[in-house]
């Protein structure tokens, strides 16, 4: 990535203007035409560098409950169990990690009941040895902005 592209990404992720014509403003800042800018952003999206442009909401403030869940799954059953987890709309992140607890995911829902229903289904899946539910007590930093 060249310095110009880095600068553009930095503006897009950290200084995105909340105005009627945000792309016009960014284009002006970078001395590009609006068309050039839009083409560049399109290419970032196609290359998978930009996932999306938009807002991240404060789930807690909107009444959602989120937990981190660690699952110990037998090696042979990991794929199937992970598939079951990822299929849930309530799951946004799901990873295989190097640990005895090898599958880690985040679950958010409006009610505790939704969470418990999901977890009891999960516990009955073949290969699931143990499930740890790890609710958040305090949040010190949430920042999906990356230093480029």
């Amino acid at each position, binding site marked *: 990535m060249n310095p110009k592209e880095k600068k553009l990404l930095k503006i897009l992720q950290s200084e995105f203007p909340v105005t009627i014509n945000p*792309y016009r403003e960014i284009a002006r800042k970078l001395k590009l035409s609006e068309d050039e800018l839009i083409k560049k952003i399109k290419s970032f999206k196609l290359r998978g560098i930009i996932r999306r442009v938009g807002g991240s909401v404060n789930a807690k403030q909107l009444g959602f409950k989120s937990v981190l869940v660690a699952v110990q799954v037998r090696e042979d059953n990991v794929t199937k169990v992970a598939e079951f987890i990822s299929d849930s709309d309530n799951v946004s992140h799901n990873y295989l990690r190097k640990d005895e607890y090898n599958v880690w995911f985040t679950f958010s829902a409006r009610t505790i009941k939704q969470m418990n229903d999901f977890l009891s289904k999960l516990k009955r899946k073949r290969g699931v040895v143990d499930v740890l539910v790890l609710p958040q007590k305090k949040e010190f930093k949430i920042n999906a902005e990356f230093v480029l």
Partner: protein
Amino acid sequence: MKNKILNDFQKEILRFLQKDLPLEMSPYAALAEKLNTDETAIIREIKRLKAQGYIRRFGAILNHRKVGLNANCMCVWNVPEQKISKVAKLAIGKNQISHCYLRKISKKWSYNFYTMIHGRSKQECFDVVADLLAKTGVDDYKMLFTKKQFKKTSPEYRL
């Protein structure tokens, strides 16, 4: 913490912003038309929702793997109560740490402090951990590198 009930207009805006903003000169025009209002009113409401904390951040969400951050690690720590604020302060200051939480422990899991570390290499993650260790003396930790990403989406909260 504000937890007021949002009106339909605010909910529509939050729904819209959780998707991908149209890549057009006037990305809010269609929404304004749909909601029978003008773009200025939408911008004003977005600013308000941001100020009230409903919108945490607004802008491009990047795929860290595609910007060269290939080593991703959740490092969990067993931090004694009296050291939590010190460790948190140091962790927050590190660029490589994107998320930092305190979580409940359980009988089988004594780690209460979580740091999500993104580095250009595993070594960069090790260096971040080594520095925290040296400065805080907290030596009960575990680095759980990501072996595979099954799912990683922007969560979409249905309002």
